[in-house]
Structures are given as C-alpha cells and as structure tokens.
C-alpha cells in the first residue's frame, strides 16, 4: 500500500465514535451506505443541509484519502460502523498521535491505516495543511513512512502481523480457521472450565 493524497485536517482531540457516526444510524443490518452519515451531526444542519464550514463539505476533502485528526481518535464505542463510514467516504488512513484500542483494531481489519506519529510531526503536518491546503503527503505501508513535500520522512509503528495481512491480502478469519487443529487440541486439554451452557 503506497498512496499520495491531500490531508483533511480535523484538529480536535478525543473524537469519539458517536461523532464519527451517531448511534441512530446503527440500526442498519448492512455495512453499506454509511459514508453519507460520516460525522453526520457536524456535517449537516438541522434541516439536513451540508454546513459549508465543516471540512468534509469543502472541495479540498473531495477525493482526499487521509484524515489528520487530534489525539486519541476513535474513543468510545466498539462500532465498526466508524471505519466502514470512513473508508466508504474514501479515507485510507487516519493520522493522529494516538488511537483508542478498539477503533484501531477495527480500522486495521478494514484496510484503514491508523497512523501514529510523534507530537512534533503531528504539529508539523497541521502546520503544513494550514500553510498549503493542497499539499500532498505519501504514505508507504511497506516502509512505514509518511513523506512530506519538503522531503521530510516520518516513520510510524504498525503491528507486524496487521502489516503482513494488509500487504499480502491475508484474511484474518481465514488465518484463524487454518488453526482449527490447535483450537480443538486446546479444547481437549483445557482443565475443567469451558462451561457449556446446556
């Protein structure tokens, strides 16, 4: 995975999943159609019209693949609808200084990269979009780098197994299923306490 895109800045800390997609849109039994409710209550007014001052409604967000967010992005509920909505909108990465645990896991399972950068690089990226809203950065998953237009490169950590799955197209459920023998052996050796509920 190697892609180049403008950044969509959302300089707010602790963006929770209720903001990413409000609970009233979780009554669906499908994964589809969630992008139109991404950041619904920040994005639309009471009549359902787009608010022009919200970043996702601005031309620069169109076609952009990277969300640049504040600290602790994705806190709150376990709803996977959050990364589904983000990816359906077109995002392939979120850059922050930190992510809530469940959101991070959910993102990795949907090919949405949760990119953690140090505070100084984070500030530099916000300064860059402030100065040059059209500036593009390149994300290289194999190299684990974000490259800025001035040539500066910022490394980011990622779980090696998740990286392998994303780069090689490995399906995690398929991987676990291949370990059926180990699972059965565990069930056989486990002392006493697997409680069948019959």
């Amino acid at each position: 995975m190697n892609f180049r895109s403008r950044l969509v800045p959302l300089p707010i800390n602790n963006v929770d999943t209720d903001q990413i997609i409000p609970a009233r849109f979780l009554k669906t039994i499908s994964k589809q159609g969630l992008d139109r409710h991404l950041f619904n209550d920040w994005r639309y007014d009471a009549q359902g019209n787009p608010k022009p001052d919200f970043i996702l409604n601005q031309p620069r967000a169109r076609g952009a693949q990277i969300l640049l967010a504040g600290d602790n992005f994705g806190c709150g509920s376990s709803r996977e609808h959050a990364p589904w909505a983000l990816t359906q909108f077109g995002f392939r990465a979120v850059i922050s200084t930190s992510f809530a645990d469940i959101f991070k896991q959910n993102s990795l399972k949907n090919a949405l990269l949760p990119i953690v950068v140090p505070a100084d690089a984070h500030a530099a990226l916000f300064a860059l979009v402030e100065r040059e809203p059209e500036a593009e950065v390149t994300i290289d998953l194999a190299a684990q780098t974000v490259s800025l237009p001035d040539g500066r490169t910022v490394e980011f950590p990622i779980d090696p197994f998740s990286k392998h799955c994303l780069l090689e197209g490995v399906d995690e459920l398929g991987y676990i299923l291949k370990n059926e023998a180990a699972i059965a052996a565990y069930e056989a050796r486990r002392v006493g306490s697997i409680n069948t509920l019959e």
Partner: protein
Amino acid sequence: MLRTIIEKLWDAHVVQEQPGAPALLYIDLHLVHEVTSPQAFQDLRERGLRVRRPDLTVATADHSIPTTDPTLPIVDEIAAKQVAQLEINCRDFGIRCYGRGNNRQGIVHVIGPELGLTQPGMTVVCGDSHTATHGALGALAFGIGTSEVAHVLATQCLLQRKSKTFEVRVDGALRKGVTAKDIILALIARIGIGGGTASIFEYRGSAIRALSMEERMTVCNMSIEGGARAGMVAPDDITFAYLAGRPYAPKGADWEAALARWKQLPTEEGAAYDRSVTIDADRLEPMITYGTNPGMGMPVTAPLPEPSRVADPLERDSIAKALRYMDLEGGKPLLGHPVNVVFIGSCTNSRISDLRSAAALLKGRKVNPQVRVLVVPGSQEVKRQATAEGLPEIFRDAGCDWREPGCSMCIAMNGDQLQPGEYGVSTSNRNFEGRQGKGGRTFLASPLTAAAAALTGVVTDVRTLL
C-alpha cells in the same frame, strides 16, 4: 514470575503463539446483540461457515428496542427489521436468544452476570465496549468490533496482543452519599479518557473489596471510558455468594470444583504492574461530568473549569468547545443548574441496587414538575425484583416514568432521547455530543445524584437531602 490475575487469565486462554503473529486467545463466553452482529452473521453465510460453539454463545436484544409495552410491535421499521434479523440469525445458527418479550431479556451486560453466564476466570467478549462490566466477577472481558464478532462466531478465538497491566488501588471507605459511580468518575477525571489505552485495569484495595458485586460492575463498566479495554476485580466471597444458585452457575460437585479453581485466580502478593494509580476513597465526593467526554468530571460542588486558566492549548480548546456545546460558563458552579430530564438506567446503573438507592431517596417525595424522569430497569429479572419490592409504585407516585428493560436513553437509538438543548442528569456512561439525542446535553452522575436532581429540578448535592 509472580502473576497478576490479568496475566493468569491470559496464560490460561492462549491456544497458541506463532512467531510474527498475535496470540490465538480462546473465548469462553460470547454475548451477542442486535446492533453489532448482523454483518458478522452475513459474513459467515457468505463464507459458508457455521458457529463453532453455539453452546458458548448467548444473544439478547437491548440497544434498538423500545422501552414500551413489549407485546406491541416495534414502530421504527428499521429497528424492527434489525431485531427480527437477530432472531433469524440465532435460529439459523442455533444460538439461544433471549429476545424481546423473553423473560430473560435485558441489557447484555446486566443479564450475563445475572444469569450466572459470566464466571470468574472466563474470557468474555461482546460486540460492545461496555463488556468490561463482566470483569467485576474476575473475568477477562472486553469489547470487540463486528469483524471480530465473526471471528469468535466461526472459531471461538481471537487474535490478540497482550495488554499492559494497570493497577487501580482504591483504599479507605466511601462517605455517605458517595457511590461506586463516583469512584469511577473520579478515576477517569484523574487519568483522562485515554489514560488507560492499551491497558487492562485491575481494581484493588479496601474500598473495592467493600463494594457489592453490582457496585463492582458499575466500576468495571466504565473502564473503557478511561481508555482501557477491560477492568477486573479479583473474585472473593462476595463474588461467590453472588453467583451461587444463579441459573448457569455450576451446581453440586461442579460448584465445589469451580470454587477451588476460582480461589487460585487473585493476583499473587508482590506481582508487578506496568502502571499504578491510587485513589483515596475517604476524600471522594459525589461526582458529576460537565463536558462532552467522561473525563470532564468534577465534584458536584466544584466550580466549572475556566479555559483561560488551562495551560495546554489543545486541552484549553477542548474544554472551551465542551463548555460552548453545554452552554455553560467557566468558573461558575454547576450546582443549581436547571435540569430537564433525568435518566436512571443503562448497563452502568440499572441493577436492582441502583433502583433501590434512587427509590429510597424518591419515596414519599415528588419529582420537580419541570423534569421528565425515566427509570429503565436493566433486565426483565431486575424489573421482576423491583416489582416484588414495590419500587415501580414508588417511582410512579413520585412522578417518574417506569419503563421496560433496554439500553434506552444511554444510546438513544430507540426513541428515548433528549431534545436539542435539553439538559439531562444521566446514570449512563457517555456524555459525548449528541449521545443521548442530537443537541442534548448530558451530566453523568450516580443514581443518588440523579434522583436528587429529579426532586429539585437542578443539579444538587445529594448529601443535602440525605
């Protein structure tokens, strides 16, 4: 090496560890609800997979269902379809379902412990972040996303990295009017909502030991609001007494064998934690949140923070933004602020002891006529017990609305919600913008503090009414 209970449970559930991959962790109990499961069942259908251990899987409907008469159809067609889909999925995959109208239905984190499904030493997951609740019984319990729901349905396993251990020590004794909810709100106010990221809390100390099982559930429930995926309390005699005789608890010789295993679970003396924090229970006061995340909490008697006095610029912006949303002024007291709605319910505070404590304050009194008060029991069993004790009459006589079990206004998916601009004192767990209804403003607090606001119509220090 000396081990904490967290490490003991982890070690006991590792199926295998392969180089370069996370551990494969076995799951003893999988709880399922209507909102985060339909796409997982669909995934299984598309792959032609079955549920590996339907005998370790239990479903209920709680999030989308109305809290009105369960014999009437669900008016919201989308919600009705989702609830019906849960029943279809459970039928097709052979999973027991305590759905709408079933006498064991309830909020998933209320019925797990109540039915004795959750037991010490188990790994418990659910597509819901408040799964941490079950840690109160000494289980390793955490929320997962829908992809992982599919993984557990199909394999009874998850790929997991080990979390850090985080000791939360609470010593001393709670004073009158101070509750388990105030402990957890104080912890989150102290460490912040990201403070426990990548960690599992173990709650310890004399104040935790003194809590009832239900109070421990309140504390563990909000571990996620402190950023931790799970929170645990080691099992003790209070745990065992709570579990004895529950429908799914072991019986006879099985009970004795289980008890012997459970007694081996507590953290060994001298085991090290990655991080520790200590809270002095004697000094805690009734807590309330003023802002738009659960870390924005303070003693109910405290003045609101003034953004201009906050040094860190992002933190300053964040508090200023929250106060704007809440339409509150920094430096002013919150005491005496008008309240439109009081909600007593949710997986944090809808158990019988929560209802008893609110009812004790409301008995023989009338709620302020300006306030709409919703009391929503956590389960059919809680409702039955409350009814046997005459609590619905106390609530109704006081002017409260007594409802059917469900998540209700905690997540506001079912029509129970704040109107734009309204202020609610809520015993639930999240005060995010719009969480309890678009434009609604939430003050999180204990059932006692909520009941006090119901009576006075304003934010109140419950100690003045005791």
